């Protein structure tokens, strides 16, 4: 309520490093200003599968090669035109600074407005998607700002790629090479970090629609890029971010109208109250492309028994858990097939569905399974066949409110059934350490997640090969019985990776993976996370898309993209 200039301002909440350096390579980068300052070649709308060109006009994908025709009217906020030189500088710098993405073997510029990416042999099909949609790929390091380091960066990047290539072939690169690389990389990194444009240039020329111009510890102001190709359409010329210090703070800001849109978790009663206090507030929920799951540590013998896992799946009342934890979320019941609930119908055939076990809450069934497997109920407590009680602790990361609530409910339900479950919080900053070291028995974690590449492959990869696998150590290379014979989920995931771009082939593989995942329960999904987006419509700004507009599905992994798209297309306008 502190500013009266309703004309053309959007107020949001986010986080950013302060003291502000404006260095995209620095930790924290530029915080929530990222998607406003750096445009990707294109936006991808998961719900429709449509690419919306941004810095690219068009592109051509060939085997191992992507050719992109750049937009000719792109300009940096200091008026300098955007050309292929900028892309090359950017790729050199990010490869040098981040050791990523080595999937790009080289970039060349046939002319000022064309770039050609040559991809390495190992690059998965999905990487093309990354090139097109990642905000860092196009103009993170403008030539006229970072150009003087371009060659140095290329040198570092090439050395890095060489080492990477050797290691991924299983060879050890010789020490001299490594030393050489480390020295050069460090040198470059020091220079780049010391350069931090906002400190040395007092501004940061960006190609995106907004440039951060004024930053304090509690607020960050972005000013519209006058030279942006869509500037004339933009009715909103200023964005003010308040610091997202806590959920309650965001609630308070939303209620009092200090910010116009945000996506905090909010208990139902607070939402009800909110709409009374601030009637202009609307909410749209969209899938966050991830789910929260109960994960097990397979190093503990207790969980190796599929019967116990099945029993647990039957015991849990997942809609109740969802109600307690995030009432807006999508319940994953009654399946556990590893595909997001909201995408289920797109990827799993009716036929497969009929083959999958339904885990609806059913104590009787759970008891039967357990008894058959030799478990006994003594008094109020279930005992394993070896006579030990079924007792374990459930770890959950403290700072994640919704997880804690879910855990609380899970513990309650399991205890009601007769397991002895205790709950333990993982302190701030310790999640990775605790989970990786295997110092837990069961935990609440992200199960499958489709960030980065919205495709079931990313979820299965997590489950059987990468992040979730790393903490659970689920025996993914074992073979499991399926209607299609004995299969290993690890191998299936490998297969899926290669055919990911091909919808039909991937669907085939996915059926098998879904079956194994549902029947062998490497994790038990609890609910699909959603982004509840609260936006004030008609008070200060108006023109938000309809609730069913597929545009919203752009939000996960960078909600600012939605805002940016709305502003630059002239849809979001100040209220007159």
């Amino acid at each position, binding site marked *: 309520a502190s500013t009266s200039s309703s004309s053309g301002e959007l107020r949001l909440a986010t986080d950013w490093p302060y003291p502000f350096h404006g260095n995209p390579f620095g930790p924290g980068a530029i915080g929530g200003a990222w998607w406003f300052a750096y445009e990707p070649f294109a936006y991808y709308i998961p719900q429709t599968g449509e690419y919306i060109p941004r810095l690219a006009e068009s592109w051509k994908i060939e085997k191992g090669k992507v050719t992109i025709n750049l937009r000719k009217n792109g300009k940096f906020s200091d008026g300098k035109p955007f050309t292929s030189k900028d892309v090359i500088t950017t790729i050199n710098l990010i490869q040098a600074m981040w050791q990523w993405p080595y999937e790009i073997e080289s970039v060349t510029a046939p002319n000022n407005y064309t770039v050609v990416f040559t991809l390495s042999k190992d690059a998965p099909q999905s990487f093309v998607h990354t090139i097109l949609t990642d905000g860092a790929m196009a103009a993170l390091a403008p030539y006229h700002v970072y150009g003087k380091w371009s060659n140095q960066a290329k040198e570092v990047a090439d050395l890095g790629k060489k080492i990477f290539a050797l290691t991924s072939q299983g060879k050890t690169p010789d020490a001299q090479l490594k030393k050489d690389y480390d020295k050069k990389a460090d040198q470059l990194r020091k220079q780049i970090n010391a350069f931090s444009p906002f400190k040395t240039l007092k501004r940061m020329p960006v190609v995106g629609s907004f440039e951060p111009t004024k930053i304090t510890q509690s607020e960050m102001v972005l000013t519209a890029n006058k030279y942006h190709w869509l500037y004339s359409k933009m009715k909103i010329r200023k964005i003010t971010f308040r610091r997202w210090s806590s959920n309650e703070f965001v609630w308070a800001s939303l209620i009092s109208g200090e910010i116009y849109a945000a996506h905090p978790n909010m208990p139902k009663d607070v939402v009800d109250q909110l709409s009374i206090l601030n009637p202009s507030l609307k909410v749209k929920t969209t899938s966050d492309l991830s789910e929260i799951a109960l994960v097990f540590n397979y190093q503990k013998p207790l969980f190796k028994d599929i019967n116990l896992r099945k029993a647990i799946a039957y015991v849990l009342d997942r809609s*109740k858990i969802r109600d307690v934890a995030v009432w807006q979320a999508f319940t994953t019941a009654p399946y556990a097939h590893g595909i997001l609930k909201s995408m289920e119908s797109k990827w799993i055939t009716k036929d497969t569905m009929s083959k999958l076990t339904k885990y609806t809450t059913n104590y009787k069934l759970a008891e039967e399974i357990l008894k058959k497997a030799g478990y006994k109920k003594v008094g109020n407590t279930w005992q394993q066949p070896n006579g030990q009680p079924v007792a374990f602790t459930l770890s959950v990361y*403290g700072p994640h409110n919704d997880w*804690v609530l879910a855990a609380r409910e899970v513990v*309650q339900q399991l205890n009601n059934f007769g397991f002895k479950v*205790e709950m333990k*919080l*993982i*302190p701030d900053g*310790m999640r990775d350490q605790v989970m990786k070291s295997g110092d837990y028995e069961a935990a609440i974690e992200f199960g499958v997640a489709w960030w980065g590449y919205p495709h079931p492959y990313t979820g299965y990869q997590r489950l059987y090969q990468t992040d979730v696998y790393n903490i659970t150590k689920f025996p993914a290379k074992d073979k499991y019985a399926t209607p299609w014979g004995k299969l290993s989920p690890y191998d299936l995931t490998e297969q899926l990776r290669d055919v990911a771009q091909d919808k039909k082939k991937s669907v085939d593989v996915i059926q098998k993976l879904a079956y194994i995942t549902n029947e062998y329960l490497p994790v038990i999904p609890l609910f699909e996370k959603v982004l509840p987006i609260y936006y004030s419509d008609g008070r200060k700004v108006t023109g938000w898309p309809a609730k069913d507009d597929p545009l919203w599905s752009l939000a996960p992994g960078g909600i600012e993209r939605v805002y940016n798209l709305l502003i630059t297309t002239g849809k979001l306008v100040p209220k007159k």
Partner: protein
Amino acid sequence: MKNKRFSNFFYDYIQPILTNKKSLIGLIILSFFILMATIGPLVVPLNMNSNFAERYQKPSLKHPFGTDYFGVDIFQQIVHGSRSVISLTLLASLFAVIIGTIFGVARGYIEGVAGKILDAIITVFLVIPSFPALLILAAIFTNAKLNAVEIALLVAIWLWAPLAKQISAQVLAIKSKEFIEASKMLNMGLGYILFSDIAKLLIPYIFINFVTQIKSAMEFSIGLMFLGLAKFDPTHWGIMLNYALYQAGALYTPKGFHYPFFIILNIVLLIYGGILLAQGIEEVFNPKLRGHE
């Protein structure tokens, strides 16, 4: 003779506490909570099943403090939570008082370099900001699977220093007292001087400190539970309060106002009881406050 001794003790320590209004009220409040922690859980059942149909019920006969965000009776949780709150708090303040007394007495009594070293140790603990340090220490021990006693010790480590400082000042004053000199002349030995001569005079003082520690010990133990050091207990008042304020946002909805209110009420009452008792005892035993007699 035993009897007489007791009656002396009663006359000197107990009776004044009972006749002072503040300490009496404080004592009543504390006994109430101790009762709650000891026999409360045996009498009051606990049903933690969430029941969304009964969320945010106002206080009634069925639910004396109403129900919470999960539809669970708040009163039951308060009663069951009091056990961990009070035991951890009391244990931590007890340890703090013990450590503080040992260090304080040693510092006050020992002279020369050793005394200076002790003094430096106390000062070091005084100047390090205790709450952040506790957080860090807790983080270090997260995976150590500590039991309640060890956790209380961990809390106490950051509580004892001010007490030690004050006690050392007291001991410094007492040790130059003439009756100590008399004991020395009678070859009474260090143990006697420390534990009989000096300790006797410190008792009311130590007790006051014990009670005042309750407040900080409580705050610290809540902090620790958040850190996951202590076993997570959803009925712990601190956890309940955290749920109410941050998770359920009860302040933000008029329906839920009673939810944090009753938790805060209990926390405040418990600490207030301690403060009252301490104030009362101080009035009774501090001759300066008592006036001439």
